[in-house]
C-alpha cells in the first residue's frame, strides 16, 4: 500500500469521526466546530487528489466564510444544547435504514463494476492548478459562471431583505 493510500486511510477515519460528531453532538456550537474540522480534512483530501486550487477554495469559502456565518447565527440566536426527546427512536431507525441503504447501494456498485474509470494514472501536466481550472471555467463553463454571479447577487439581496428588522407600519 503506497504512502498516498495510507495517508488517505488516516484522513478518511478522521473525517468520518468528525462527521459523526457533527450529526450526533447535542450542542450546536460543537456541531459547527466538528463540521469545520470535517471541511478542513476534506480540503487535505483534495490536496491528496491533486486538486490544489479547489482545496484552497474549500478552506476560503466553506471553512472560512460559510461556517463563520453558521457560527454567527448560532450565537445570535443563543442556541443551547438539544435535549433528547421521546419518539426519537423511530426516526433513528428510519435514518439508519436510509444510511444503510445508500451505503449498500454504493458498495454493491463498486464491487461489481469497479470504479467508473479504473485506476488513475499520473496526472496530466498542470492538473489542478488555478490556470487549468480557470481555463476550463472561462471557456467551456462561461454561461454557468455568469448565471452563478447573478445567483449570488440575488442571494445577497434576499438575505439582506429577509434578515432586516421589521419596520412598524406607520399610520398615515
Amino acid at each position: 500500500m503506497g504512502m498516498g493510500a495510507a495517508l488517505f486511510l488516516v484522513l478518511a477515519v478522521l473525517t468520518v469521526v468528525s462527521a459523526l460528531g457533527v450529526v450526533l453532538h447535542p450542542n450546536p456550537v460543537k456541531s459547527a466546530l466538528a463540521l469545520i474540522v470535517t471541511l478542513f480534512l476534506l480540503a487535505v483530501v483534495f490536496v491528496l487528489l491533486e486538486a490544489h486550487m479547489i482545496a484552497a477554495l474549500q478552506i476560503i469559502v466553506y471553512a472560512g466564510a460559510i461556517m463563520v456565518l453558521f457560527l454567527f447565527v448560532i450565537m445570535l440566536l443563543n442556541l443551547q444544547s438539544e435535549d433528547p426527546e421521546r419518539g426519537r427512536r423511530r426516526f433513528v431507525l428510519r435514518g439508519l435504514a436510509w444510511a444503510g441503504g445508500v451505503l449498500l447501494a454504493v458498495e454493491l456498485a463498486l464491487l461489481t463494476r469497479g470504479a467508473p474509470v479504473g485506476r488513475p494514472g499520473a496526472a496530466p501536466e498542470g492538473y489542478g492548478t488555478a490556470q487549468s481550472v480557470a481555463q476550463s471555467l472561462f471557456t467551456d463553463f462561461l454561461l454557468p459562471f455568469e448565471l452563478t454571479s447573478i445567483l449570488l447577487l440575488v442571494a445577497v439581496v434576499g438575505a439582506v431583505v429577509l434578515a432586516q428588522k421589521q419596520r412598524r407600519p406607520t399610520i398615515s
Partner: protein
Amino acid sequence: MGLIEVGIAAAKAFAVLMLVLHMSAILLWVERKGSALIQDRIGANRANIFGVMPFNFGLLNTLIADPLKLITKEDVVPAGADKLLHFLAPFLAVFPVMVTFAAVPFGDQLVIGDYTINLQVADLDIGILYVLAMSSLAVYGVVLAGWASNSRWALLGGIRGAAQMISYEIAMGLALIGAVMTFGTLDMQAIARAQGHHFYGVIPAWGIIYQPLGFLIFLIAGIAESKRVPFDLPEGESELISGYFTEYSGMKQAAFMLSDFAESVVVAGLATTLFFGAWQVPFLFRDGFHFPGGVIVALPHLAVVAMQIASFTIKVFLLCVFQILVRWTLPRYRYDQVMDLGWKYLLPLALANMLVTGIVIVMLG
C-alpha cells in the same frame, strides 16, 4: 523523500518559526519604547532582579520579566464558560497566523554541495490562495474566544472582531488580485523572482511601482485584519476592557498578544513579497552586484544569500515599525466607520484597481 530532504524541510520550518517569534519579541520592545518616545515619556524601565541589575538596557529587563510573568500566572476559566472552547480559542488564534508564513519566500536559493535549497518552507503553486485561506481561518480564534467566555465584553468584542475580519478579508484578497494579474502567477517565489529586473537599468521593478493603489488597499486591509489601531475596536481598551480576550489570563492571553504581533509580521511579510521585491536587493543578482554603468562586483554565493535574507528581514521590520507608528498616531475608528470603510470605500477601490490593471495589461499586450 530521503532523510536529508526531511531534515532540510524541518530546518527551514524551524528557521521561519524563529523568525516570526523573534520578530514579535523585538516588535514588542519597539512598540513599548517607540510609543514612549512618541508620547514623550520614558517607558517601562522598573523591572529589576532583587535590585541587583541597577541599569536597564532600555527595557530589556521588562522584555524578560513580562513573558515570565505571563507564563507563571494562574490560568482562570470563568464560571459559566464552555471549557473546551475556552481552551481551544488561543490555539485557533495563533495557528493560522504562524502557518501562513510557510508560503512566504525569505531568500532565493541556497546551494550547498549537491543540494539546491529553495529558501521557502513550502513552494506552493497556489501560494497566495493558501495565504488567503489561512488568514480566513483566523476569525475562529476571535469569535470562539468571545463566545466561550460567558461575558458581555468578550461577546461584544468577539462579534465585532469577527465581522470586521471577514469584511476586510475581501478587500485584502481583491487588492492582491491586482498583483497576481501583474505577475501572472500565484506562486510567491516566482513573483519574488519576477521583481529582479530594473527599469531603465536603474529603478528596481518592485511591485509597488506596478500597483501603488493595490499596496495601499492591502496595507489598510491588513492593519484592519490584524485588529490593530486604528481598527482595534474588538479589543478596545478604553471601551471593552480587553474585548474578546477579557476573560483570559496567563499564557492564553500571551498567546493572543503573540497572535496580534505575529499577524502584523505576516501582513508585513506579504506586503514585502508582493510589493517591495521580497528578498531582492537592488542591483544584486545571483553572482554579485551589477551596477548600472557596467561595474560588476562578484560576491561569493553565501554572501549573496545572506544579503538577500537580511534584506527581507529589514523590509519586514520596517513595515512593522510603520504599523506601530500608525498605531500611536491615529485615533480609533468607530464601528460603523470601520464597516463603511471596508465595504463602501476599500471594496469598490479594489475592484476599480482590478479593472484598471486588467485594461492596462490587455492594452500593453
